């Protein structure tokens, strides 16, 4: 058995926290989206590591579905960001505070 479960837990917790930090601190919506991807990736790594430790493929299936959802989410989110940029000509999460387009 390579590196124990603690290593997987630590790396995934660290990457998840850093992603959460990026989502909270950064103001550019693109970088916020990247931080969300970071968090999803951390969870994927946890699922894959545990599916290896527990001899079960369920974790990998979960990770696969999460990747699908993340891809769909990124496409829709970037389309929305592009739409906001077309109407407002600026990108700052602090200034996007009305839903009316």
């Amino acid at each position, binding site marked *: 058995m390579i590196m124990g479960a603690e290593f997987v837990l630590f790396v995934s917790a660290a990457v998840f926290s850093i992603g959460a930090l990026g989502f909270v*601190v950064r103001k550019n919506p693109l970088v916020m989206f990247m931080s969300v991807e970071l968090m999803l990736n951390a969870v994927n790594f946890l699922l894959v590591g545990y599916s290896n430790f527990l001899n079960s493929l369920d974790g*990998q299936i979960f990770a696969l579905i999460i990747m699908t959802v993340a891809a769909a989410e990124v496409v829709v989110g970037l389309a929305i960001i592009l739409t906001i940029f077309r109407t407002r000509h600026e990108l700052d999460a602090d200034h996007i505070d009305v839903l009316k387009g």
Partner: protein
Amino acid sequence: MEFLDQLLSFNLDRETVFGLFEQSIVFIIGMTAILASLGVVLCATPIYSALYLIGNMVCLAMLFLMFNAEFLAAVQVVVYAGAVMILFLFIIALLGAKKEGREFSFQNFMGLSFVGLLFCELLMAMMVGKTRPVEGKVTPEVIQQVGSAKAIGIELFSNHIVPFELASLLLLVAAVGIISLAKFTYKPMRKRTRT
């Protein structure tokens, strides 16, 4: 190889040395993943963030390889580092992303303390967590016998067929959504007076 021979002369059998070697590789890749994710958050220019994110994803794909998930490693590289990041880079190039100002405000401090608390909670949950593991039957030997992709395919199409179909529906909905977003014509919004 000389280094390995030297290690072998310390009365270590080959198995231990390779185990040690593998462990150190996994450790280094994991630390690189953490550093790359720090780079995503700390870089002021979005294009550098995107490049660091690619590095992070490749590191995680390598870790997937180390944990016997070859198929997922390939999917990670193709879908994330390929498709999603290309999309991000296109959008960055299209919008001409500017550098972000870097002042340390009260909100930043609040976010930092919140995330520090979150990290401590995660570590605490990892130490005191007492869940009963559910052992499966698919050992790494079985996966090596049939291949990772085939094992996942069998599992996906026998036990998890409903999530699979729902994922295809989700992709269809996303495609329809972005087409309707892109076809719509916009009037530029009035310049706001209040800042």
